């Protein structure tokens, strides 16, 4: 167990290092002279002499490896440099924006879990009957509807037509509901299929015949025998979906005027603000690695077969 965790942690560290290397390389290889950009940002005329001075100042003339080490050291300490567009510290905004995106993803993941379990069980309860078809149809619809269209629809429905909920802003639980709904549709659709198919496969396993021979009802077998069998699969899929929700956040946050990381990243991409893109990308990649680590540990706790391999 401890062996597994330490091995898995080392693996994550290597991945983190790799991720940082990718982020660094991406910006270094970007076309255009960063020193010129910064010089212009400071409102000075970008004379060759001044540009050279800026380049010296921010360390552009150092060898690449040195620059990487400097940058990584700063990043670990939470210093992501200065935005080329606004001239402000990137890290100044980050903390607040991370909590906004965190709220979005946590709420979305919770709703997606609830909806997908409900839909999946509905389908597994009455396989190939009407409830199953409805659940399957909803899953297909949810997986096929573009997130931005979902957002537009919920705004139109809940906000414009019935004026029940605010359509923008990050201002208390009421304003969270619509973004949560929007961000949860796709993962709920995908996960409901995972639950439905997982339960069906589990219900076709030989041990279900044993459970039947015990005189257990179908409901009891679904919850006692099939559910623990799909838990590791579900956790795995949920992890993937939580990772994907960072991408959805990029669409949903601007739609609802939330100032989160996705919105920040998008603005960075729009204005080619490399430092912002770099910082967000590093945070996203770190988040994926972290989620994967947590998923692996959770699977370890829920699947005794894997637990045994490592004990």
């Amino acid at each position, binding site marked *: 167990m401890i062996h597994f965790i330490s091995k898995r942690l080392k693996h994550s560290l290597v991945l983190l290092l*790799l991720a940082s290397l990718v982020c660094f390389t*991406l*910006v270094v*290889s*970007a*076309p255009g002279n960063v020193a010129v950009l910064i010089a212009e940002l400071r409102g000075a005329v970008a004379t060759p002499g001044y540009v050279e001075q800026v380049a010296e100042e921010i360390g552009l003339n150092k060898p690449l490896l040195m620059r990487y080490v400097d940058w990584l050291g700063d990043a670990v300490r939470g210093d992501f440099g200065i935005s080329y567009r606004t001239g402000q510290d990137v890290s100044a905004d980050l903390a607040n924006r991370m909590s906004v995106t965190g709220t979005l993803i946590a709420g979305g993941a919770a709703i997606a879990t609830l909806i997908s379990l409900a839909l999946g069980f509905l389908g597994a309860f009455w*396989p*190939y009957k009407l409830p199953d078809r409805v659940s399957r149809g909803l899953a*297909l*619809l949810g*997986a*096929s*509807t*573009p*997130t*931005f*269209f979902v957002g*537009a*629809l919920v*705004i*139109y429905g809940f906000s*414009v037509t019935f004026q029940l909920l605010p359509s923008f802003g990050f201002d208390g639980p009421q304003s969270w509901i619509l973004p949560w709904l929007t961000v949860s549709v796709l993962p709920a659709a995908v996960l409901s299929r995972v639950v439905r198919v997982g339960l*069906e*496969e589990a219900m*076709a396993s030989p041990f279900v015949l044993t459970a039947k021979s015990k005189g257990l009802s179908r409901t009891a077998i679904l919850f006692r025998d099939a559910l623990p069998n799909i838990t590791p699969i579900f956790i795995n899929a949920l992890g993937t979906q939580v*990772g*994907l929700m*960072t*991408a959805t956040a*990029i*669409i949903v946050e*601007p739609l609802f005027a939330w100032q989160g990381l996705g919105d920040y*990243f*998008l603005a*960075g*991409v*729009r204005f*080619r*603000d*490399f430092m912002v*893109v770099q910082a967000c*990308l590093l945070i*996203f*990649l770190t988040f*994926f690695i972290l989620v*994967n680590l947590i998923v692996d540990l959770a699977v370890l706790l829920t699947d005794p077969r894997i637990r045994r391999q490592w004990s």
Partner: protein
Amino acid sequence: MKKLNPILARMSKMPKAALITIGLFVALGTFAPWLAPQDPSTQNLLEAGLGPNAAHWLGTDHLGRDTFSRLIIAANTSLVSVGSVLGIAMTIGIAMGTIAGYHRGWVDDLLMRVVDVGLSIPSLIIALAVIGIVGPGYWTMVLALALAWWPMSGRISRAVAVSIMSKPHIEALRVLGASPWRIYFNHLLPGTIGAVMVYATADAGVAALAVATLSFLGLGIQPPTPEWGQMLVDALPYLESDPRQVLLPGLALTAAVIGFNTLGESIALNRIPKPLTRRMLAARRIEVAGWAKEGIDAQ
């Protein structure tokens, strides 16, 4: 091609509605310039925001452009960009996958590790990162999405290539002295391309979503070229007064994606036997009813 038969058999069972949707999307996309009744970019502010009428079947947008024509041309935009993305992604993926499957060893390990990493990062984030560095534009979008998409076909083609390479007739060819080039181009590549094509088609819906999403964010297809996602974001400020202009492109895109996703679902293997449909059950009962029952062993 024998490998494809079971896949094609499963495809033949998919719902007719999905087939029709895909057919319609491809037909509209291909013949859009001839089908669109009006010029999609002609503005007429006097006719802005109209409802459906004889001249404009689905009304006009806030600039007075004919929505019906724009929807049709958008199908063409979508089809062409999705085709280019998947074409480039498949070319890279098949090349990488077959090389990995042919060589195995460290080449395989390295390429598949790259594929794993690529698959674990959402494609939208990869594409946006590339666009953020290079700057927006049509070809940036296509290349950025292809970069995000190739690991998928890379993994599939590697799996297919490995299974082809382990066939006895390839071993026989080697023993008979066939050159590596001949094995690769005459046997490995054709078999892999066929299988990957089918899976890639099923993935077209997700690719169409990605193109529309980037356009929605203003980083994909640029105005005035009509594209569903971009039409939707254009109409969003007028959501209250004219929701039709938001609904129509959204519905068109969703319908196309549903078609492709249904195709993908019908390709996916289902290992569990389905219960009999009522009609089949009745047929089986009739079959059984014909069997004699004799009270031969009454105790």
